[in-house]
């Protein structure tokens, strides 16, 4: 199974057996997974999701964040400050906290934030569980909802120093924060790993702009639907 591509792209080349069920939506079937490409109207972004077979009766509908969540996850599991960062996460980002918590449950039935092993790497995904009959007709709203959650999680985890209130104090003030941040990001090169997962020659700096545009587009569509 090839590695999963990052959630947001600016170009897309379908692979495998290609199906176009509606304008702007492409399913690429392979023996390993089905890649779902959805053009996000009003943006330069194409969102890629994956239907990963789990067992005979269920699959995961997954959005790949590659290693972008890993530095923040390392802070969550740090020896002397992990509990405090986790506590802040639970209080301010209950969605992220719940997804992480659910990923430990077997069988998990709700949206999870977990990692999957692909050749040569471990990739973070935000994923919904699908039962077999749902595979044939995954609702557009469900795709958008997963894209929204994933883009929001990416933006939060990549910019947690600003987005997560109190985290700098918990990590020991500006000096301790910088030291610990350097330790985790230096180990991973997280931003460059995102760049490696991109398909369309996008530089890593563009990713966060794409994520914000994707999140805005999804939020707008959801708001319009709620008004109707």
């Amino acid at each position: 199974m090839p590695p999963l591509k990052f959630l947001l792209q600016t170009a897309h080349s379908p692979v495998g057996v290609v199906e176009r069920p509606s304008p702007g939506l492409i399913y690429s079937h392979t023996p390993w997974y089905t890649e779902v490409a959805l053009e996000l109207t009003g943006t330069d972004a194409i969102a890629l999701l994956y239907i990963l077979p789990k067992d005979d009766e269920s699959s995961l509908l997954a959005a790949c964040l590659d290693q972008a969540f890993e530095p923040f996850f390392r802070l969550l599991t740090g020896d002397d400050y992990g509990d405090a960062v986790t506590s802040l996460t639970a209080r301010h980002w209950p969605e992220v906290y719940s997804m992480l918590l659910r990923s430990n449950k077997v069988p998990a039935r709700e949206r999870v934030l977990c990692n999957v092993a692909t050749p040569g790497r471990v990739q973070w995904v935000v994923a919904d569980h699908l039962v077999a009959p749902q595979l044939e007709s995954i609702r557009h709203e469900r795709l958008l909802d997963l894209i929204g959650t994933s883009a929001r999680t990416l933006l939060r985890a990549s910019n947690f120093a600003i987005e997560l209130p109190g985290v700098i104090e918990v990590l020991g003030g500006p000096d301790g924060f910088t030291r610990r941040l350097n330790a985790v990001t230096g180990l991973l090169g997280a931003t460059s790993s995102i760049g490696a997962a991109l398909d369309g020659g996008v530089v890593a700096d563009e990713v966060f702009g794409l994520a914000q545009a994707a999140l805005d587009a999804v939020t707008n569509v959801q708001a319009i639907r709620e008004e109707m």
Partner: protein
Amino acid sequence: MTIKIRLSTIPHVLADDELPFVLGFAPDPRTCLEAGGGEYRRGIDRVSVSWKLEPLYLRATILNSGGSTHIIASSGPILNDWWPLLRREGGNPTRPLLSAAVAGRPQTFKRDDVAIDISIVPPGPLFESTSAIVGIERADGLSDDSLLFAHAISLSVIKAALVVLEEYRTLVDPAPELDVSADGTSLPLSVVLDSAHAAAGAIDWTHSVS
């Protein structure tokens, strides 16, 4: 110059079920009969032919099974998991050979005035891998005559197996960064597919889409 390929002079060095991948990446150290540019080795019910195309080796097998004689070139197991998807797709103009295989239609390969109908068959009870096959009519088992006929047309079957690999690339382009095992070594998938493309281009049999 007359080419002579006598079964009795071909060294018996093949394993009982040996059916090599169409592309070889290393010389076969086992003894062989060299005839007309091909290397011949035999087993109980089969004879292999290997053509040298530096740095590659192009390989086919002449197999006697149940009184029928076939020439087979194996495209390897790389497509095995794709067949359910290919059948669901039905056909695709970018994959004419695989589309014909799904429809059960042989495809014609030509050189000069010679035309050969070759079938692409998915893995099944007979073969573990996707294979290009042509039957030799009125063959009397592994006779000297059938070997001589196979000598003349085996490159058409080899070309078909290589074109299948080219069409596989339309499914996975760009090729994922995976290694595949071949001839006891491990090679990047992209190298194998590039080699298949280069080798197919070097064989002067042509496929006319039907």
